[in-house]
């Protein structure tokens, strides 16, 4: 169970980019947050991840309020993050980028590599190249793989489909569903690609101007009407 209660956060020089956010995601579910540009989606993820101090509210993960923790501690609790803009370590090789999180956690590197290349076979061919030299899509794939190999309990994805070729986007959808089900991972997916996101999710929140204006569970029956109803 992941829960956000009355979260308000923002950049120092303005009022606040998000206000009074309330979100709750049951374990092992995929939840989407959709919203147009500037709605505050990235801000929300950043404040969950501890990259930005929240002004008020609580973020409860695993029964613990993580809103005052720093990113490192949050990550160590098992929260993984794919940021907007990839943030690949440019001078580390693909393989080093991929394994870094595992090295910090003293995990089995060989197994992690296998898992990573299994998800994204394209990365295997370029494993010796420096992360900063990759194409945008390759970096995005690497960013997602990097998050998956550390065996997270919860993952935060900020527009993960951006810049990725269509067949891999489909693959990512499958992967997310699979890890949620098989590996007990809770997924918080921020997207503007509404149909892609809603189709994967069990619930969604609609973010507008920094506030949640719509939310609902997603079932087989209402998927289409929801996708239609969201106008970004």
């Amino acid at each position: 169970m992941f829960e956000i209660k009355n979260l308000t956060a923002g950049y120092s020089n303005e009022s606040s980019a998000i206000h009074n956010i309330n979100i709750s995601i049951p374990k092992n579910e995929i939840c989407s947050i959709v919203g147009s540009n500037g709605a505050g989606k990235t801000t929300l993820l950043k404040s969950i991840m501890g990259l930005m101090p929240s002004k008020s509210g609580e973020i409860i993960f695993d029964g613990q309020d993580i809103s005052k923790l720093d990113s490192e501690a949050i990550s160590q609790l098992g929260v993984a993050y794919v940021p907007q803009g990839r943030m690949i370590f440019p001078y580390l090789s693909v393989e080093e980028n991929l394994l870094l999180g595992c090295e910090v956690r003293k995990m089995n590197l060989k197994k992690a590599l296998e898992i990573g290349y299994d998800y994204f076979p394209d990365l295997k061919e370029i494993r010796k190249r420096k992360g900063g030299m990759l194409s945008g899509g390759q970096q995005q794939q690497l960013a997602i793989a990097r998050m998956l190999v550390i065996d997270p309990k919860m993952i935060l994805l900020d527009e993960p489909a951006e810049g990725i070729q269509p067949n891999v986007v489909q693959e990512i959808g499958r992967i997310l569903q699979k890890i949620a089900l098989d590996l007990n991972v809770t997924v918080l997916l921020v997207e503007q690609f509404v149909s892609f996101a809603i189709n994967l999710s069990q619930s969604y929140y609609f973010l507008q101007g920094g506030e949640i204006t719509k939310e609902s569970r997603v079932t087989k029956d209402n998927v289409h009407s929801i996708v239609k109803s969201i106008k970004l």
Partner: protein
Amino acid sequence: MNKDLELHLKRIARVVNPIISLRDVEVDFDGYKALNTINIDFSFKGVQFIIGPNGAGKTTILDAICGRVKTSKGKIIYKETHEVQNKKPESIVHLGISRKFQNPTIFNTQTVFENMKLSLLTGKRNVWYLFNHKITKEEEDTIDQTLLKLNLLEYKNVISGSMSHGQKQWLEIAMSIINEPELLLVDEPIAGMSPSERDRTGELLKEIGKDHTVLVVEHDMKFVSNFSTSVTVMHEGRIIDRGAFDKIVNNEQVIEIYLGRQN
């Protein structure tokens, strides 16, 4: 390579009266050939897409044209007269080639208006002129109109760094089109945009494409199908097909390596 394919590629590569032609272009990054003997012309006008798997070399093609990466072989010919390979980026811009980058790269500490002013008065004219230039009413109108087109007019005096990712994308587009370049290179213009904005961007590109050439790299197939006049497919640093969207989506190889089955 099989003979038919070779012939096919030869045929699709050439057009009459191209705006930009790549002849045996090769880009080499410390031994890695990001572009491998590229031979292709792009015709005047229209929104022409380049698609292909991640790492195929699409961005690199745009980079080579606008002078951001050095080609190790071959020629890039603009309007059949100017060889632009390995020229300085600023002189390529002066020929009428403009580039929009994948991530928004705007001047964060300046206002939207100043960003626009900077792109309007490109450095074609001499340093002294630029230094003393006072903006004219007409020029301000041009800026306003472009901003209006992109729904940014209300942000005219906002410091651009404080806008969201999407808004920065718009500004970046506005900056690339304000001088009405003849060849506009656009890399993933709709990344991070919402569906309605995507449509607006598409319409905009289409409109520019009426009089100018727009080369777009994009992964969103819906977008490609709606707005493309032609599609070029790349894979591993080579061109593998080109044609109308409907034809391309039925190419088995393209489906295999790029589109996926259940589309």
